[in-house]
């Protein structure tokens, strides 16, 4: 199964429509979380909002995730070692306040399992490529060092007060 999510905060009809149109040719059923979009999919099972607990279960079963550039989705896909195709909202098309998602997506694109499409053609091409297997990711050194710095600051604050 393929999971499409555009988050729950903003609509993203353009992405939902593209994936809906290509869905019959993907060889796998697609489930979509379409948020508050107006476009109603014809070729995918869809829901406006998927409960976070159920979303977690779904994520376990999917072969591929297609998503807007939402950090929550990126984190969840990584936790489940799932390949991810990101397609960012465009501020020019009034899909977001600014293009911060584009910049972030490009910066995260080097990470394992993440592929980025910036045009419809690129998205279709990536969807037709074989899915690469993602190996389980360990906690990165940079996450560890951020956590350590925060913990140290808290520890020092507590000791400073006592």
């Amino acid at each position, binding site marked *: 199964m393929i999971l499409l999510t555009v988050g729950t905060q903003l609509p993203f009809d353009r992405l939902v429509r593209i994936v809906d149109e290509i869905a019959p040719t993907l060889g796998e059923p697609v489930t979509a979380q379409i948020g508050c979009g107006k476009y109603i999919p014809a070729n995918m099972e869809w829901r406006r909002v998927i409960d*976070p*607990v159920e979303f977690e279960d779904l994520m376990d079963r999917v072969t591929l995730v297609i998503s807007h550039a939402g950090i929550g989705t990126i*984190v969840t896909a990584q936790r489940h070692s799932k390949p991810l195709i990101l397609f960012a909202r465009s501020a020019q098309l009034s899909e977001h306040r600014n293009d*911060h998602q584009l910049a972030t997506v490009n910066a995260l694109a080097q*990470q394992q399992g993440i592929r980025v499409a910036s045009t419809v053609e690129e998205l279709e091409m990536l969807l037709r490529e074989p899915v690469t297997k993602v190996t389980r990711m360990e*906690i*990165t050194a940079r*996450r560890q060092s*951020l956590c350590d710095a*925060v913990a140290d600051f808290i520890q020092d604050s507590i000791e400073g007060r006592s």
Partner: protein
Amino acid sequence: MLLRPALDRFNPVYVTTNARLAARDRVGDIRVLPDANRDQLLKGFRCFFAAFKLIMKEKPDIVLSTGALPGLFCVIIAKMAGARTIWVDSIANSDAPSLSGRIARPFSSLWVTQWEHLARSDNARYFGALL
């Protein structure tokens, strides 16, 4: 939630706008705030007063937030109430600090960016990133 390894040993109270997220991550001790963003003024007020009540009741020594608006409210209120505050700016903005992050800066005892190129020696520290 990726910061949990840094926090759990201090027995924190977690605050969320979506209790189901806490259920997903199996966090027991939570408080829920109404969600708000900058486009919804009324919800913003509601969230601010809920945050005020929450901080006054819990009287935290330290408040850490990753944003956005509800987290910003908590940081501002907690700082005014004498707590130490930590802001971890979202990794979602790689070209500039987030808006809520910029507002949070004067109210933050420690202000952290997750992008090395956004670090400033004085008040925007870089230690690493969650992703």
